[in-house]
């Protein structure tokens, strides 16, 4: 009976199928950590990140025959994950986040104008901020900006790699990253102010 059940569950694998799985294991599986980390920062939730990585790898496996051997597998996986993320999360939230960047820019300029020296830019002031607070600030960024910050500052990709992942010119990556860090700074400045880390000038 056991043999019968095993036969029922297991379809015979051809050498090609075994090779296919071995190739996938070699090319795609080593990037799981990087993709999980990205999924976690994009969704801000470990359950969602697990679902996202599972969907991404199932799709990647299903379409692995379309992957051009010798090209950047990590970039290919990131593209699949990004599309899966957009399909799943845009569907749930209906619309991507919208932030009025002019408001952020005005706030940024106000911070600059209200501080006559650069004491508020000292790293020590922000040293008491926790990982969760910084991760929360990143998760709250609009999607396009969040993506570049995660890829550049957490995953350590170059502008060219990021441009390839998200299919935009390198100049757009640079400009988004510049804006994203300004947005993050305004958030961190607010956190630091709320916690009393900033000493107000008289």
């Amino acid at each position, binding site marked *: 009976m*056991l043999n019968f059940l095993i036969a029922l569950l297991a379809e015979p694998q051809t050498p090609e199928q075994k090779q296919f799985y071995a190739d996938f294991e070699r090319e795609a599986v080593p990037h799981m950590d990087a993709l999980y980390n990205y999924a976690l920062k994009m969704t801000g939730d470990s359950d969602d990140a697990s679902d996202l990585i599972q969907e991404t790898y199932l799709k990647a496996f299903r379409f692995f025959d379309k992957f051009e051997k010798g090209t950047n597998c990590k970039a290919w996986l990131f*593209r699949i994950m990004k599309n899966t993320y957009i399909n799943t999360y845009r569907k749930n939230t209906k619309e991507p986040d919208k932030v009025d960047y002019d408001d952020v820019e005005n706030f940024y300029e106000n911070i600059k104008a209200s501080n006559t020296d650069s004491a508020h830019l000292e790293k020590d002031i922000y040293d008491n901020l926790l990982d969760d607070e910084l991760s929360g600030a990143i998760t709250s960024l609009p999607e396009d900006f969040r993506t570049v910050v995660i890829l550049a500052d957490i995953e350590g990709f170059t502008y060219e790699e990021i441009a390839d992942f998200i299919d935009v010119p390198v100049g757009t990556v640079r400009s988004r990253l510049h804006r994203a860090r300004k947005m993050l700074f305004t958030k961190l400045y607010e956190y630091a102010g709320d916690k009393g880390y900033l000493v107000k000038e008289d």
Partner: protein
Amino acid sequence: MDIRKDLTAALVDNEIIDESLKKQLVSKIETDVDLRYDYMVQNLVKTLIKEKVSYQSIPEKVKSKVLRKIQPKEIRVKSSSSFFAGFFSRPAISFATAILIVLAALLILINRSEVTQPKDFALEQLGEDNMFVQAKNNFRSILEGKLAPQLVSSDPSEVKNFFASSGVNYSTVVPEMRKWDLLGAVVSEDRGEKFAHHVYANSEGEIVYLFQVEESYLQTHEIIKLTDDLLSYLDNGNCYTTLNDDYSTLMSKSGNNIYAVVSNASLDDISQSFCALN
């Protein structure tokens, strides 16, 4: 010289290759208070992220779950067979339990199609890049005379050749239909990718528009999409039909391609002809 502020981000990231631009930027940062402020902010945020945001590896449990789903079944069964072996070696339950499990499995298989009722996938298809939406819009353009065939032909092989020679990079199917006459075809282009469309008509002047895309495009290209649940539904061999804005709309899968068919003919008529394309 006017220097873009976003170059401060590139400087922090060591992404400026042009040495002379780099020198100019560094010297400008020394003299321009605004630019220096920007540079310090970029540097501060990058440093804080690097130092404070922890890199989280995938939990072993999640990794195993993902791998289990893609591993060839032989490997999966090998790792779980010890459990079954122990279970069935107990004489008191071995035979009866085995029979029950097999019966339960058969019942699940038999009833599976009744459990998964099709839902109204049309409600979820949103956005200009959605294949379902694009097919509907294209059909409307055909009816309004805004979209005319680039090739007029009733010969399926000529239409197929037209697709291939016009840069469509996936294999296409142009079936001959008993009730429908092939009229012609269009190749559209979106951000460098070419897509195949063709049109049929019948003797009563009803039109069928067929848009086909290789499924991998829907998964890996941003320019065209379908929701995952509709894709899974089609992947399972189902044909989805609906009346949408008074047009009969059908989605199916054959070979590697996903087909969207829109028509002003009845849903029954197009289902009979287009649910199974070969």
